[in-house]
């Protein structure tokens, strides 16, 4: 039996407080009719002795305490999922977006109905991800390899080229296979950004494999908390029921976290750092940990969340907590961006934790992890020397220092820098790395084991000229 109330006790922010008389369910969906007769939806967040706290997805503007009606549905939030979702766009509650050409789409016939919060994958059921996704981008393939089933966020700043990079990854990631699905989740983003992605997906011919979920900046804030969960529930169906490889792009997690903060402060919770709730780590984990692979199943969920670091600050709680959960991060640098390096990836603070099992003999090439480590080491040294140079002048540098400094410059110019439509296979990337490393005397190459070094190091002095002549 559905019970209806119309005696709201209080309204605050996105929350409605209701004195209940029946046995309310935690997480229960509440149908709300506002004083103008318009329907809204809410969800039970907390039940104290007599009062139920309900979050209203569309916000509480226009609600009052006596004419608003609430009906308890005795159900938790669920979403209908179907293969026909491919190539279509949905709103923050998972309903098909009404587009201009909407009537050209068939009604969706649900194949399954699932609660959106998901349940944790049994750690014992996980299969450790090892299949590399070749993105054709040297910095990523060479140094921060992306693996199927990984969660690898892009940490970026306002106005940097993260959208372009994400689009290039989707375009080049060999996504045209039959069983590949892209789930795009726009969380509080600008309409322009949404359109940018749509166009890029269409250009690359991937549109029929894309499912979009959009909550744009002017849409209700609370829906931002639902939308990634809805999208991931759909992703799980395609990955683990239909055996497909799903790539989930979520942008922008910063907007998600701000919605979380808003909700938490309306509930009057004790805030942690910068006003964000103390449980934000666990909350983010409940999204990110939905990436992965499961033993005995073909499919996978790979996540590329995009996080705008407020004030480019990587220690801000949002990127910080994310970095503690994800399997590495790709960090974009404003400095490189200004110097027109694309993709402007700050390699030193970037990392892929799943790289070690994904690269090497039989996968990419035997020298991969060692040469990568060497590149990091030399590039880090070159940056230090550059700083030194700016203080004491070039004349006071040792000749080795000068070599390393030069290495750093060419590394940025030839290795890091790449065009939007340029695709380098991993062998090209690794060969390029050896060209660069071979400009430094062999005995200063300390990260590479003797056999590998002897095999790949290019002794010939001409190589150095070849490179400088580029």
């Amino acid at each position: 039996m559905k019970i209806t109330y119309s005696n709201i006790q209080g309204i605050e922010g996105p929350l409605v407080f209701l004195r209940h008389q029946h046995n309310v369910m935690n997480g229960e969906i509440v149908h709300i009719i506002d004083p103008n007769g318009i329907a809204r939806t809410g969800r039970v967040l907390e039940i104290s002795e007599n009062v139920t706290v309900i979050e209203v997805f569309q916000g509480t503007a226009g609600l009052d305490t006596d004419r608003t009606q609430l009906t308890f549905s005795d159900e938790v939030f669920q979403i209908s999922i179907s293969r026909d979702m491919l190539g279509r766009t949905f709103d923050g509650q998972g309903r098909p977006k009404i587009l201009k050409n909407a009537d050209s789409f068939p009604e969706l016939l649900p194949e399954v109905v699932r609660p959106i919060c998901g349940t944790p994958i049994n750690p014992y059921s996980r299969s450790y991800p090892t299949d590399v996704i070749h993105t054709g981008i040297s910095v990523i393939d060479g140094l921060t390899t992306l693996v199927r089933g990984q969660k690898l966020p892009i940490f970026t700043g306002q106005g940097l080229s993260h959208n372009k990079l994400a689009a290039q990854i989707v375009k080049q990631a060999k996504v045209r296979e039959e069983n590949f699905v892209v789930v795009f989740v726009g969380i509080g983003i600008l309409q322009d950004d949404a359109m940018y992605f749509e166009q890029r997906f269409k250009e690359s011919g991937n549109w029929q494999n894309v499912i979009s979920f959009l909550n744009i900046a002017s849409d209700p804030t609370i829906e931002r908390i639902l939308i990634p969960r809805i999208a991931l529930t759909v992703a799980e169906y395609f990955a683990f029921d239909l055996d497909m490889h799903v790539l989930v792009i979520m942008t922008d997690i910063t907007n998600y976290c701000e919605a979380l903060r808003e909700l938490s402060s309306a509930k009057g919770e004790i805030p942690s750092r910068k006003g964000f709730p103390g449980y934000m780590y666990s909350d983010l984990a409940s999204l990110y940990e939905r990436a992965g692979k499961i033993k005995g199943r073909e499919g996978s969920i790979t996540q590329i969340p995009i996080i705008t670091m407020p004030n480019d600050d990587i220690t801000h709680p949002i990127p910080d907590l994310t970095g503690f959960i994800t399997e590495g991060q790709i960090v974009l640098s404003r400095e490189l961006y200004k110097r027109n390096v694309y993709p402007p990836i700050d390699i030193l603070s970037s990392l892929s934790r799943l790289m070690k099992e994904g690269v090497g003999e039989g996968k990419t090439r035997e020298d991969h992890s060692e040469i990568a480590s060497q590149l990091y080491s030399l590039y880090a040294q070159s940056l230090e020397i550059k700083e030194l140079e700016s203080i004491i002048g070039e004349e006071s540098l040792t000749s080795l220092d000068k070599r390393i400094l030069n290495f750093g410059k060419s590394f940025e110019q030839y290795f890091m820098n790449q065009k939007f439509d340029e695709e380098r296979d991993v062998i090209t990337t690794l060969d390029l790395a050896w060209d660069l490393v071979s400009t430094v005397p062999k005995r200063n190459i300390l990260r590479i084991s003797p056999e590998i070094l002897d095999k790949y190091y290019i002794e010939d002095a001409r190589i150095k000229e070849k490179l400088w002549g580029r």
Partner: protein
Amino acid sequence: MSRQSDQGFILSIDGPVIGIKGLKYQKIGDLVKIGHSKLTGEIIKITDNRSIATCYEYTEGLHVGEPVLNTTEPLSMELGPGLLNNIYDGIQRTLPLLREKYGDFIGIEQEAYALDRKKSWIFEPKVKEGTKVTPGDIIGTVQETNTINHKIMVPMGVYGTLTTIVRPSKYSIEDTIYTIKNGKIEQKFGLFQKWPIRNIRPYRQRIYPTEPLITGMRVIDVLFPVAKGGVVAVPGGFGTGKTVIQHNLAKWADADIIVYVGCGERGNEMADVLEQFPNLIDPHTNLPVMERTVLIANTSNMPVSAREASIFSGLTIAEYYRDMGYDVALLADSTTRWAEALREISGRLEEMPAEGGYPAYLSTRLASFYERAGLVHPLGFPDRVGSITVVGAVSPPSGDFSEPVTKTTRRFVKAFWALDAKLAYSRHYPSISWTDSYSLYSEHLEEWWNKLGKGWGKSRIDISEILARSDELQNIVQLVGKENLPVEQQLILFVAELIKNVYLIQNAFDPIDRYSSPQKSLKLINLILDYYSRSLDVVSREIPLFEVENLGIVTEISRARLSIKNKDVDQFEGLQKKLEREITGLIERYESS
């Protein structure tokens, strides 16, 4: 517990925190079964006539008014054969069994025994009927894995005369193995016992640790060693290498038993362990490392209350093996996630927050964790010695070590492996900072090392001095450039770089470098230090520095960590000879001209 059933109902729900009314016999720590789906929870607070429980499972879908049953028993671990080579969640549900019964996702209403009820074990009695027994007495053994002989011990609090004991044969976990009579009461016992996770298991006597836990990581074994029975914290920002260090310890440390608690961390890291460990061979026993390992996985997306419990679950299992006389290493990754679970629950109870929102009792709780480490004589006959070494990863927000959990943890640990993001950025791993780390165990371990060969104590001091001098000199270099320093100082810079790049750095994934035996660690550092003192002599003869820098031996020293296998440490003799030869040659060349 022959009470009538104690039942109440749900009054309120706030995430994992459940208000209950109507219970009559509730005590703090009682396990309750919440709702029609019988979710497990633990009573943590009692006020007026209501109780507050935290629920170990997700509470979405629960209604107020649903019944709550009090089991009146505390959360306990099942302790017996079958723990090793197994993986549990934070409240000891067997994950492989959960998977077998319910599939790949952990939902509600799932149950799985901790110890396999069907499996049988060969039991060997060690005492005769009629013997007087006390708690901790070993009355028999079971070969649990190829490496570990499981001691069946008289449970705590049980005294009396052994009235019956079975013959050597196969028994399952629930069979009666022995009976003990005390006065008129005769009790039956099987192969396993239970112990409440929040209580310390008693022992006879604590002793001061004097033996190192050999880790195979040079920077740890030589510079910042930990003793068996010691406590260490490993703080570091994200991606600085805490988990790799913990995994490394689990793989190569010379403990008998590893209890690895993945507390609020990644699911894939547990999958990594599960896939790798069965194929890794313990260098000390030549058997798969999985056979000495118990895993507890309560990943970041699993319920926080169970995360809070997981650390104590791990400790209880560790104490149980310690009581058998084993050296146990308890590796907790990460204690910060555990503290955050405390904070989250405390916040929902609307307790007064202290620093950083953590409850005021953070420090008592942390103490109750680290206190359970140590080297002890356990209770019971025969007398034996067992230890628990605790290594806790700490994940300070923004890598800032002044935050409450890191700060408080410092008070309880005697070794501190501070991870440095700058080192990690340049892929200098393990990124253990040589300036911010320390170990108070070193002086007690020197005797052990001296038995192995000469110079551990002195080498440590020499390395520290060279590194410290080099750090000072770097500041001067920033002003005048390297070329303008006196040549002895340039040499220090060169040797310091050598120590960092070919000694302190260690690649956890290189088949040779990942484990450096104590002999190899010692020989390599002695060689480097010898190179330093000989070079000092060379440059004092006004021979230019580049000559010693360019000696062939430098390249070989640089490669040694990657090229010389632990079993081939004799090759260092050859390198030593070569060093002497090249230096003498160099001096002769200059002095004759």
